């Protein structure tokens, strides 16, 4: 097999590997081997691209106006507080495929913890909430995640390590205080909201750390 024949079938080889003859050519030909390596590298790097940024808030203003004009909503005033950081992470189904990035995996685990928490903590206050909210499920993984995040910062921006470490301690203290309060009074919705905000702040810290990748 020569290079021209090999490159003719290249699209399929990239997808699903080649037959023995094609594999043999790949091993013996540096040009084709470099090409395959580059194309796979481009595809793998693309899988790690994150959602870029939020749309201008004017987009929501436009949607809200249209919803009201079309009568799709009941006329309720006010807005719901939202958490784009954690939400954006969770909506990344392909992140799971980029398993080589430990820090990404850590962030994903962390985000799952947030949603787990959110789903449980937003139920109506009842005694069972005490057992659900401050339980150890996200906490057990949190220490490992924190260590990985700090390792990541140390690798990418050593000068900022102290800042991240200090702020991680602060935000973990916020989480602990909010949990303690919820244990004392499971019906204190203010404390529940502080806990969610504390996790939002932690998500911000992780997101800022991850934003350093590749820069």
């Amino acid at each position, binding site marked *: 097999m020569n290079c021209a024949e090999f490159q003719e079938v290249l699209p399929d080889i990239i997808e699903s590997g080649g037959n023995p003859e094609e594999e043999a050519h790949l091993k013996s030909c540096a040009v084709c081997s470099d090409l395959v390596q580059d194309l796979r590298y481009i595809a793998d790097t693309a899988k790690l691209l994150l959602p870029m940024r939020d749309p201008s808030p004017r987009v929501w203003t436009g949607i809200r106006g249209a919803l009201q004009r079309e009568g799709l909503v009941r006329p309720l005033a006010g*807005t719901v507080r939202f958490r784009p950081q954690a939400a954006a992470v969770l909506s990344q189904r392909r992140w799971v495929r980029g398993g080589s990035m430990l820090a990404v995996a850590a962030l994903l685990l962390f985000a799952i913890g947030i949603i787990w928490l959110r789903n449980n903590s937003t139920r109506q206050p009842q005694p069972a909430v005490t057992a659900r909210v401050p339980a150890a499920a996200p906490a057990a993984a949190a220490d490992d995640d924190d260590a990985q995040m700090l390792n990541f910062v140390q690798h990418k921006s050593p000068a900022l390590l102290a800042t991240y470490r200090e702020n991680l301690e602060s935000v973990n203290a916020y989480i602990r205080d909010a949990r303690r309060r919820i244990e004392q009074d499971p019906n204190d919705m*203010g*404390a529940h909201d502080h806990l969610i905000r504390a996790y939002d702040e932690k998500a911000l810290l992780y997101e800022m750390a991850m934003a350093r990748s590749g820069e």
Partner: protein
Amino acid sequence: MGRMSNGVKCSLVAVGLLAVAAFAADNRKEFRYTVAPGASVTVTNESGPVEIKGSAGRQVVIIATTHSDKVEVDCDQNRNRIHATTHFLQRTDGPDSRVDYQVLVPSDASVTVRAPSGPITAEKMRGDLTLEGDAAQVDVHDVSNAHVHVRTISGPISLGNIANGHVEITSLNGDVRLDAVSGPRVSVNTVKGSIRYNGDFGEGGEYLLVNHSGNIDVTLPASASVDLSARSITGSVENDFPLQQKQHPAFAITQGRSFAGTSNSGASSVQLRSLSGKIRVKKR
């Protein structure tokens, strides 16, 4: 000069040479682009200040000054989008990595800045601002009819003279100061940072100031029209602003820990929340 000692003369010469060397290492580049209304400008600068100024006209002018040959600045235009990015040619830290940006944009442009060390300043804008910096000090003033989103880890944030703003500020340990900031929605979240608000909570908006352990200090004039509630779960609250007590506050009022009431027609909703910090509300 004649009485100057040789030592002083040598020092002056050395300082002069150092200054010349420093000046020679500086490399100032200017990029100019013409854009249509609604342009978006993004600046990413790993180290060093970014200044954004809104202006009349349709030009984006980016002046970038590098201080070593270890970094370079890439600017490009793709339709109505301008990107300016600092790239490292060699791994470096400290002053060598610094690039200073001065950016002049049409005041209606949307601007996104990511500058971990900052400082970041923005003024005279009508377009949306999204500003992010890990340790960056962020200062925004004279902005109207715009969304202002600021996120920092430890950098202090100061906003002044913001009208009809949709303001969202999130910081971990940065102190936040708002002077004459009003609009339909103003929200501030910090962990240890303190929050100071000085203004009238105008425009019938929703204002939400929240932190973990820092102080929240609010100063407002007697003319403010607010429906205000404050609660610190384990900290304390103080109020010397005249409020009419509400019949049905959103939470049980505990002396020294929470209060709620309205003034004038109660047009704006103001919620002050801390977990363990001190909340103080004062009349101006």
